[in-house]
């Protein structure tokens, strides 16, 4: 494939996104584990804290080990929750020092080449948007742990993007995990859980809402909110 067009790339991005979903469940497949890296190593690699040679070795292992690949994806997901969104063109936090020096040296060379070229070089070049980069933020109408009445247990949210649909899972995690409601392909950013689904749950029960937005460009954004049940 030489010089593939934007539409080709768009299609390939969609294809990769669909594969990512399968990759999650793929982790349940049995493999013959050997020399699996520690969870600490997976965490460091996902955070970009390993030198390239070690990352390459780890990636070669992940190609054969769906469980470790899943652990890596989880680390990436957790780290993105911890960090504020970052612009796609700049280097993320944790960039090795030698890379920063190289970037500085490159900038100085550009200065020497002249102002025009330098200015041109500083223009941000478009990079393909992929899942795992800056994720659009889902904003919820209710604050974290807000109380919602059982008779009108409705959660609303908002996302300033071109959204096709939303998938929502509503569940309690304690004392036992139980799915209370599940909606797929919602067009409106709102879901009401029927009072019958909340029967037997005591006042103050923490209920989790996992909202996944599927956007027109194929990207997805996920966020979880907890609310408390009010009787």
């Amino acid at each position, binding site marked *: 494939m030489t010089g593939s067009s934007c539409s*080709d790339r768009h299609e*390939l991005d969609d294809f990769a996104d669909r594969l990512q979903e399968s990759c999650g469940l793929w982790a349940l497949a049995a493999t013959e584990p050997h020399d699996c890296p520690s969870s600490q190593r997976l965490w460091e690699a996902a955070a970009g804290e390993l030198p390239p040679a070690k990352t390459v070795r780890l990636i070669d292992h992940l190609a054969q080990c769906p469980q470790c690949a899943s652990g890596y994806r989880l680390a990436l997901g957790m780290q993105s929750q911890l960090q504020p969104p970052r612009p796609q063109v700049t280097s993320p936090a944790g960039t090795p020092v030698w890379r920063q020096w190289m970037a500085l040296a490159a900038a100085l060379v550009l200065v020497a080449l002249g102002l025009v070229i330098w200015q041109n070089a500083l223009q941000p070049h478009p990079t393909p948007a992929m899942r795992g980069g800056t994720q659009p933020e889902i904003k919820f109408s209710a604050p974290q742990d807000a109380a919602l009445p059982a008779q009108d247990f409705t959660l609303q949210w908002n996302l300033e993007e071109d959204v096709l649909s939303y998938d929502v899972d509503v569940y309690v995690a304690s004392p036992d995990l139980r799915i209370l409601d599940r909606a797929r392909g919602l067009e409106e950013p709102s879901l009401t859980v029927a009072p019958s689904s909340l029967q037997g749950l005591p006042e103050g029960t923490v209920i989790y809402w996992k909202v996944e937005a599927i956007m027109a460009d194929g990207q997805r954004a996920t966020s979880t909110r907890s609310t408390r049940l009010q009787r």
Partner: protein
Amino acid sequence: MTDSGRRIPRDKEAEEYAELRESLRRAVLRVCPTWLLDKSDDIIQGALMRVMDIQRRSEGKREFNPSYLSKVAHSAMVDQIRKLRRRHEVPLENEEGTAMPLPAPAVSPERSTRSVEIGRGIQECLKQLIRPRRRAVLMRLLGHTVPEAAERLGWDVKRTENLVYRGLENLRECLKSKGLEP
């Protein structure tokens, strides 16, 4: 009151314990994939026990920031995934060699079976890719952007971009040849 045979500290400590548990629960549930949700209580408990153990060894002097708690929660999740692997080592195929659905309560058997088939297809097709494309495609499937993949692998962005898309195209053709079209 006991929790998995452990004595829960009282008063202020009990309050801190509850807060800690809640923080860990949030860290886990925020990213827990659907197929692992039914194990989330075990994961939270495993993470909590680790934190309590560290706390005890430091005689209560250790403070836990959200980043550290996430790391502990991640470690507990990886352990749980590896436990699932051990549990499912044998029964993945029936006598005809067809992939069997796996016991993942939050996922339909059809979706589970299909995903395992596709997952295996991905694994086989990745093996056929030339090494740099394989690495680039895997970074993409793991959730990295092209610049992130380039940085982690020590490549330049343009090269990485080419490898990702050429590799994805190869992967798509390979899966198609196996009758797999996700």
